[in-house]
């Protein structure tokens, strides 16, 4: 049977979810292998070097750099408090002295004869990393972090904004083709992860942010509305650091597109359950997709592996079209002809014959689509 390798987004009912939690710099790991953790458990911590203040002592005292050392009241390694004397000139007969005081609490890191600068480093900044999902510590990476595993349902979105959030899932619509409207967002959704169908308007998403909803999972969002949320045009899809109360996870793409049935029904199953979501997206080499992780009970039988090699598209595969003019339509592969076909654009490509499913407004039809414009909808 002909194959085509088109990695799709994962929609897994049950999998052994693995996650690395690594410190930005070496530090201390606070858990042991085998420990059970909740999303809020701190698994590792470290201290980032503090900020640096550079004192131009020669300028401040109006002397040559090489004379700075004669005026210093501190040496490298000394701990200083804000206002402590760092350097002072001898003055004239002990009068008219000029002096330099430390602007911060910190440590004298270096003193330069060439430039006359004294570097004061502030106290280190502590950094802690939590577990993010409920699970078990699988591996300790010495001084750097941990790997944890969790039996979970796992869904990838296509694009997201804002970083890690958690909360209980709340399904807002009865049908994957329905939109989340502004009226559906109410104060009782604070801290929840709300799930909608095909679309959320800018007004509804802004309301969710105001009411501190933890996350929104939805089929589509308008690209040009992102500017109103972020304050700038999103040029490249590298996100996750946005400071927003509500993570947005788009499962299908820009515009109004019904959420795939597989994704919607899986989320429906876990209505009311705790989940962890992350909007971080990076669409470059080393792709990162936004994700929804729903930890399950202890039972680890019948797990599908989240890291398994993506299967290719085969005859009978459920696929989604990911480019206009049939964008967002779902269908099944009826055949994969091996020869190149000329499209309307005159591009010569390998194609697949797709039986597009009927939707609310469109009828079932059979059509040739470039294989590059198809995405596998992966099911177990």
């Amino acid at each position: 049977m002909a194959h085509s390798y088109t990695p799709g987004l994962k929609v897994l009912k049950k999998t052994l979810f693995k996650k690395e939690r690594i410190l930005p710099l070496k530090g201390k790991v606070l858990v042991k292998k085998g420990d059970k953790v909740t999303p809020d458990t701190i698994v590792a911590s470290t201290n980032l070097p503090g900020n640096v203040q550079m004192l131009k002592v020669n300028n401040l005292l109006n002397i040559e750099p090489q004379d700075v050392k004669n005026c210093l009241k501190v040496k490298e390694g000394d701990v200083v408090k804000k206002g402590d004397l760092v350097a002072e000139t001898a003055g004239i007969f002990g009068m008219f002295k000029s002096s330099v005081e430390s602007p911060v609490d910190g440590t004298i890191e270096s003193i330069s004869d060439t430039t006359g600068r004294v570097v004061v480093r502030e106290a280190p900044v502590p950094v802690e990393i939590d577990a993010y999902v409920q699970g078990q510590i699988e591996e300790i990476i010495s001084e750097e972090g941990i790997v944890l595993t969790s039996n979970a349902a796992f869904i990838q979105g296509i694009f997201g904004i804002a970083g890690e959030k958690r909360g209980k899932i709340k399904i807002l619509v009865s049908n994957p083709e329905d939109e989340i409207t502004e009226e559906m967002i109410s104060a009782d959704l604070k801290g929840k992860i709300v799930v909608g169908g095909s679309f959320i308007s800018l007004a509804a998403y802004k309301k969710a942010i105001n009411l501190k909803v933890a996350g929104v999972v939805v089929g589509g969002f308008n690209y040009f509305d992102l500017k109103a949320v972020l304050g700038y045009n999103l040029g490249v899809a590298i996100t996750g650091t946005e400071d927003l109360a509500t993570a947005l996870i788009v499962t299908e793409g820009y515009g109004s597109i019904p959420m795939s049935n597989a994704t919607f029904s899986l989320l429906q199953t876990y209505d009311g359950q705790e989940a962890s979501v992350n909007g971080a997206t990076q669409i470059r080499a080393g792709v990162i997709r936004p994700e929804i992780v729903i930890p399950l009970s202890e039972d680890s039988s019948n797990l599908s592996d989240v890291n398994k090699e993506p299967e290719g598209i085969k005859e009978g595969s459920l696929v989604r079209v990911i480019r206009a003019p049939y964008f967002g339509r779902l269908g099944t592969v009826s055949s994969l002809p091996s020869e190149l076909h000329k499209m309307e654009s005159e591009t010569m490509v390998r194609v697949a014959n797709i039986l597009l499913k009927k939707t609310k407004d469109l009828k079932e039809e059979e059509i040739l689509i470039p294989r590059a414009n198809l995405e596998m909808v992966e099911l177990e």
Partner: protein
Amino acid sequence: MKKIKSILATDCGSTTTKAILIEWKDDRYRLTFRGEAPTTVEAPFEDVTKGVLNAVMEVEELSGRKILKEGKIITPDSGVEGVDIYVSTSSAGGGLQMMVAGVVKSMSGESAERAALGAGSIVMDVLASNDGRLAHEKITRIRQLRPDMILLSGGTDGGTTTHVTELAEILAAANPRPRLGQNYKLPVIYAGNNKAQDAIQETLGEISDLDIVDNIRPILEKENLEPSRDKIHDLFMEHVMAQAPGYKKLMSWTDAPIMPTPGAVGSLIEMIAKKENISVVGVDIGGATTDIFSVFQGKFNRTVSANLGMSYSICNVLAESGLDNVLRWVPFDIDRSELTNRIGNKMIRPTTVPQSLEELVIEQAIAREALRLSFIQHKEFATSLKGVQSERTISDAFEQSASGQSLVNMMELDLLVGSGGVLSHAPRRQQSARMLIDAFMPEGITQLAVDSIFMMPQLGVLANIEKDDLKDEASQAALEVFDNDCLIRLGTCVAPVGSIKPGQLMAEITLNFQDGKTEVIQINEGDLKLIEHPYEEVKVSIKPSRGIDVGAGKGEAIESSIYGGVVGLIFDGRNRPITLSKTPVERIESLSKWSNAVDEYPKGDLL
């Protein structure tokens, strides 16, 4: 007897690894086979050599020649199996990412940037004593960026040492960590005032892996980029590549150091411009970035527009150029919000291809803007040295030329080469020619070409082999394959420019073909005309109207030889810059007229 009978060259890109086989056949070097496979730097493979072997295996299958044995490349060529030389370039894992620092931003800062870009790196930021940022802001920035290496320059030899030492102190205070690997020191190259070398050693010697090379700007009037560029290449191999999975093994296979992909392309373009004594502009438009290389007046420049590209960065093209500038190239009406969603969807699903003609036209409109913006950035960067005092005579008194003028002169340009998916794989070559002309707006006589399978990286590294016994033949092979197999000659663009009223005669051109036929054509303002003709010499004499220039000066006639190609001879009377009417009906009419003149798109309901 040739010492080199066969050459295998690979380019490990961020997504695809491409292999080519070059063989000595019929008294010249030719590209005979090529293969490609996905790059395997990332999980789950994490070994670049797997992708290389897969690509080479495809070459083996196609050529029927055995090249691999027990997972290794067989050398030398025994006549029936193996190859004589194996070389490779790499841009996998995000390529080489550098930060550069100089005392004065427009002087040593710019020279350092030029050296880094020329070596094939992405410059993440340029720090300078006068860049307006406070010391702690610079420190925060250095920490955030985590470059692969840093190039520090500043001061002329023997001059003041304070400023450059201050920069070193800022670096030391930031104590930056390299991007890859937590366990090694960050490589820093010092290429500044030689008098400050001891102070720099003292400041940075312990916390970084410091290398000291000759000053990049020994005197104000001279730029000395070579030592820094070479050192960047060495460190790229020793540190950055050595951290990437599988590269140690790959390095042990190659006969020449692995070069960063854009560095190899740049050196090939430089070599061709020198050999032919011509001015060249080369462009590689990718999914994430657009690289532009140029040689004008013998000076090589490269710029990377890091966020202008056709897939990952496509929304940034839209953000930077504005939707109106993209839409001005589209000869039909389209709903604006629908269009931005479509472009957004291309960004998040970057591997899709245009199925409908409408999608293709929109994609090529965006490409024009991406190329135009990248070229503006290039022109601003490719300048003569700034801060140089030049002697002037009385005859210069009326010329307002100052130091730091752009070297790019479109009238002087001889050859424009395009590569990258949207240019190399356009369904019709006419489309590639149109995109190049509309975006770069060449003036006078300019040859157009595309690199069909982006072979320039492999040829570039081949041209750079330094082993004495192989050097000459390797560079001969690179140039021969470049001439015979690499470029697809599109044709020549003849564009008279000057001030003239719409519709008036710009030039009269007499074409003398090799078969003895003669043709005379007239170009009026606003015309675009095509004469189909293969890659053969055509003698032309061009008589421009008063005030119009085709290369010899305003109103001056010119005799020259031009070449056709797969598209032919294009006569462009649209003047410069190409301006489109603000009235939609008129704009669409002009666009359709130009499209039809060169048979750019299939005719149908859309056009």
